């Protein structure tokens, strides 16, 4: 992958992998790339990429158990962010075509991201309010309805919400 310096918006230290620094590069188009040098590799390479930095970091942690994340300056990388993957609710066809569903929680705010090969397809916003997950009405392709239902129920259960309400 070739990235010109003119395409880079910002670079941030994300942590250490096998003794080498891992950097998160934000491109001007809004795409994020995690770059590092895994053990045994001579050159730096893209470890993960996506439209949300917390998801990029989550995937680096999943794929490289030795990754030691550092405290992040950017609010995007706030270490209290909880990322969870819900892609098991997607149909085989959607999984094969590179789709994923993640939830990114920062405090009471929970966003569900539908992505395709790291690119954002749709975001469904929600928040936890008094043990209720309140979901803002969003537009997203209908083939994701079942998966989003599963993801919201799963996320509600994991954060102790007993009700789900769809806001009008």
């Amino acid at each position, binding site marked *: 992958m070739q990235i010109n310096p003119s395409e880079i918006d910002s670079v941030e230290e994300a942590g250490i992998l096998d003794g080498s620094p891992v950097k998160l590069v934000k491109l001007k188009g809004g795409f994020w790339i995690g770059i590092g040098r895994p053990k045994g590799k001579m050159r730096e390479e893209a470890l993960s990429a996506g439209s949300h930095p917390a998801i990029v970091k989550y995937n680096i942690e999943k794929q490289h158990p030795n990754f030691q994340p550092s405290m992040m300056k950017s609010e995007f990388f706030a270490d209290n962010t909880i990322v969870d993957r819900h*892609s098991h609710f997607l149909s085989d066809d959607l*999984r094969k075509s590179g789709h994923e569903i993640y939830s990114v929680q920062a405090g009471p705010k929970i966003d569900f991201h539908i992505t395709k090969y790291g690119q954002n397809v749709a975001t469904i916003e929600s928040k936890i309010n008094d043990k209720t997950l309140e979901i803002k009405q969003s537009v997203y392709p209908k083939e994701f309805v079942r998966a989003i239902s599963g993801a919201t129920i*799963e996320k509600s259960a994991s954060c102790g919400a007993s009700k789900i309400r769809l806001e009008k």
Partner: protein
Amino acid sequence: MGLDQGLLRAMIEMEKGEDEEKYKSKAQEGSDLMFPVTIGGLTHRPDINVKYHTTIRLFDRKDDDQSKAHDTARKLNLVPPNPNETAIEPTTLQGRDGNTMHVLRLHGPHSERIKSYQPHFKGQGQDIPNFHPHITVDKDTWNKVKASGAKTAKEAGIEFHPAELRHGDRVISTYPHKEEKSEQLDKGFKHVAAGLGIAAGLAGAPKTSEAPTPATTRAPASIPLSPYSHKKMLNTIEQIESASGKLQHHKPTKHGTAYGKYGLMPDTIKETVHMHPDLRSKYGKVATLQGQDLNNYMRDNPGLEDVIADRHLQRLEHHFGQDPSKLGYSWNQGIRGTYHAKPEKISSHPYTQKVKSFYSKVK
């Protein structure tokens, strides 16, 4: 006082050496608070497939309240004997008719401590006059231990495990113990060891945390390890279920569709994760997943099926010992199904036949 007449009668018959199979079935009617034992890695007697153990207290199914027995047991710190500090004496117990039961009698402070638990169970279970802790063994093992000249349980390859309250093959409860320093029992052990003629080996060994030195230069007991291999059993199942991962499309059943190279059923996956806190904290989601969602989740967590298969087989080994036929049958028919199945049904089942056939071939 609740005396399990059936079990007592069975024990006497065992002592007579008349009908060990009958003893086995009778023994499974009552409950037994015991320290499970392994000898040379074997958990069960090869002759009648009864678990090696040291009884702490026997209970009667009809007259004794299991919950009361459990309540008493959990208040005691039931510390498994330290094999280094437990002297053994291969001996025989004579039945009333002069027949013989082969036992390894336990001596030393750990044996005394097992005796000391008895008063706590007053009014529950059997009061056996002159109760002396021992391990009843098959004649071949007894001969090997005797020929080896082993004086301590350690030398004979004996290990004691945390106490369990069992009803037949079913574990009702286990009793974790608080660790204690072996020095507390050191003095008592040396006294008994001296009586058994192994004082010379202990004379220069004040630190009881180390294994006592044998009195002579003889080699340690050479009890052969069981040919059973956990890994081999897993490979056998993998071979049967999916031709070692090549055919992973399982037919749907009324209990759901199996997953992966070991043919894990959804309930097995959920139960195994639920039973292990380390898995539950990491993969707790599986409890709410079913069908394709569960399969996808398993696929998204590579290696999880190996961990679950490994833990599930460990559970089956805990129930059914190291008999590949029984383990294979229980993998296919479940734990309850295996307990309810007659031995002939188990041995003639097609899955058992496959296990027998593959187990000797796989590596």
